[in-house]
């Protein structure tokens, strides 16, 4: 066990006789431009609009340049800034903020140009250098968050995450793992196994390791499944009975669901296509996600930091003649995940996605490197939770695919063939 990432103790168990506490979400999006900013924040980018005519960077998001009425475009910006003034909000009529007072805000002179109103980490005073993060709040809106910074040594993402989860205000933007109960839907595959170990090391209270059948005798003395704080349970996302039974056997409320289940098989649509294999891929990836989401959403919605994280293949972005069934299943999975995210907005449950390219496991033996090591994927999942980042791409293949897809989806679909 390494030191848990999150130094804050988990919340005390609630009085079972008290009415459950509702979890209102932050106020909703204000404009289309703000939605566009949120879409980029979801990718972990720090962006501001800049004028295509005069180059002025601007905030808050708007539809035209406030200086020259020129057209605005989104650009990654330097993340540095300086606190001009700070304040503490002690009274609010908004139910979300009222539950979380006092709330620290301040004005920041960004290195990128504009002066912005931002959430402040505790202890920031006027004159302090800060590093800005563009976060998503629990309502899914983009929000600027200022972290303390030494100008010469800006915090690494890892440090930033530690600061965020240690700060009562920052904590609302991320998904704390320390003290949480986490379900990993398929802990039999290498990725799920690595994740179980990583979650236990990160201080999760309980890691429920789902084990799809068939169950070999070695399950009984598996070192990962025997780790303290790990509860192995049979779980097959293709079986509604199994999903219901497994969830009923988890001791205590469930905070985080991580869906690692998938069925990777090669094969095309007409040529070399095994329809039963395609069907199985859809059952696991798409229907499995739906079963897991249906069964866990009400539980997650009752938790202060509920989250559903799905690990999916970047093949979801376009068809692939070499893995037609798998690509179709992952595309269906992505679609269901996006619908599920919209459903969950009003509950404050974060729905996160981690895209990966081929992983270094038996499913992808035929493929040449680069491949994502299971341990690296597990670390990326923990980082996505720690940063509260909605969309993460792990490894060169996934990052490059996402970049090309964002750039030109039609061209990407033509080029993406084995």
């Amino acid at each position, binding site marked *: 066990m390494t030191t848990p990432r999150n130094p804050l103790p988990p919340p005390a168990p609630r009085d079972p006789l008290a009415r459950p506490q509702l979890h209102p979400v932050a106020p909703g999006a204000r404009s289309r431009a703000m939605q566009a900013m949120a879409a980029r924040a979801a990718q972990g980018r720090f962006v501001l609009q800049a004028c295509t005519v005069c180059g002025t960077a601007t905030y808050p998001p708007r539809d035209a340049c406030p200086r020259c009425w020129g057209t605005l475009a989104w650009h990654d910006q330097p993340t540095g800034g300086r606190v001009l003034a700070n304040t503490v909000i002690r009274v609010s009529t908004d139910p979300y903020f009222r539950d979380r007072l006092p709330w620290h805000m301040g004005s920041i002179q960004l290195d990128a140009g504009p002066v912005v109103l931002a959430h402040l980490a505790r202890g920031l005073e006027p004159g302090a250098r800060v590093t800005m993060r563009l976060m998503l709040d629990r309502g899914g809106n983009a929000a600027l968050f200022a972290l303390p910074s030494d100008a010469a040594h800006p915090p690494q993402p890892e440090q930033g995450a530690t600061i965020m989860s240690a700060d009562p205000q920052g904590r609302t933007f991320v998904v704390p793992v320390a003290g949480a109960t986490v379900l990993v839907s398929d802990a039999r595959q290498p990725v799920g196994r690595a994740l179980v170990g990583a979650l236990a090391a990160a201080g999760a209270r309980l890691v429920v390791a789902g084990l799809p*059948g*068939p*169950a*070999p*005798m*070695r*399950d*009984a003395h598996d070192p990962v499944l025997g780790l303290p704080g790990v509860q192995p349970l*049979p779980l*097959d996302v*293709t*079986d*509604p*009975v*199994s999903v219901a039974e497994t969830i009923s056997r988890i001791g205590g409320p469930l905070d985080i669901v991580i869906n690692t289940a998938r069925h990777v098989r090669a094969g095309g649509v007409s040529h070399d296509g*095994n329809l*039963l294999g395609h069907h199985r891929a859809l059952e696991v990836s798409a229907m499995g996600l739906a079963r897991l989401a249906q069964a866990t959403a009400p539980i997650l919605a009752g938790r202060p930091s509920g989250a559903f994280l799905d690990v999916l293949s970047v093949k979801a972005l376009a068809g692939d003649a070499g893995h037609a069934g798998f690509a179709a299943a992952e595309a269906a999975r992505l679609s269901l995940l996006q619908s599920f995210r919209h459903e969950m907005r009003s509950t404050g449950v974060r729905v996160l996605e981690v895209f990966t390219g081929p992983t270094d496991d038996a499913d992808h033996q035929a493929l040449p490197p680069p491949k994502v090591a299971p341990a690296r994927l597990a670390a990326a999942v923990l980082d996505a939770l720690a940063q509260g980042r909605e969309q993460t791409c792990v490894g060169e293949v996934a990052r490059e695919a996402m970049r090309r897809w964002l750039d030109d989806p039609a061209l990407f679909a033509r080029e993406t063939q084995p």
Partner: protein
Amino acid sequence: MTSLLTDLVAQLASGAIRVVDLANTLSSDFPVIVLPSEFGQCEPFRMETVSRYDADGPAWYWNRITMNEHTGTHFDAPAHWITGRDVPHGTVDAVAPRDFVYPAVVIDISAEAAADADFVVTRAFLEDWEARHGAIPPRHWILLRSDWSKRVGTLAYLNLQDDGAHSPGPDADAMRFLVHARDCVGLGVETVGTDAGQASHFAEPLPAHSILHGNGRFGLQCLTNLDQLPTFGSVIVAAPLKIKGGSGSPLRVIALMPEA
């Protein structure tokens, strides 16, 4: 004839003839046979509710079920195996109704199987068994009582080790003896397959499937309660679903036996 059936019904009613359920419950967690991963796999039983006195059906309850033909307690028709592909009436829909009812002989291998999960039933074992119990009569189901059904619900039922499944079964000579010398109707077992767990490594691989079905005989798998049956004197009723061109079928198997 009427009096015979009337007598049967009367004896069933009085309890003089007992009906024993030889089927395991069809549930999503009942293990299915696991083939090497390069082959297509046996789908386990799945059930999703269509309605249960709710908005989708206010007064009725029903489910959608999916499974392989060889899931749960099931019947193997001759066409299940390549050796039986040309056997007339070799698919479940074509099996004659007359073949649904036959007497059974129960051969107890539970002690041997408990001592050795890979216990192989040989011709010598069967001949020795006959010397102790009497000859196996023709046109009988041969039921191997291994007590494997008592492992259902534990990892030890499939007994999947790193080198594959380990469970008892017959070798080729034993199967030829049962089929040709004893004219058996078929072989019924408590394990997930009529063949031993390691039978794909036998000198003649998968002899039960190969020899039974090549000679138009049947298989019954995942049976239970064989320990309640007498060695001789029970009658098996095993009627598979009438699936067009089907290779097998889940089914309810019952045994009729005189109450001692």
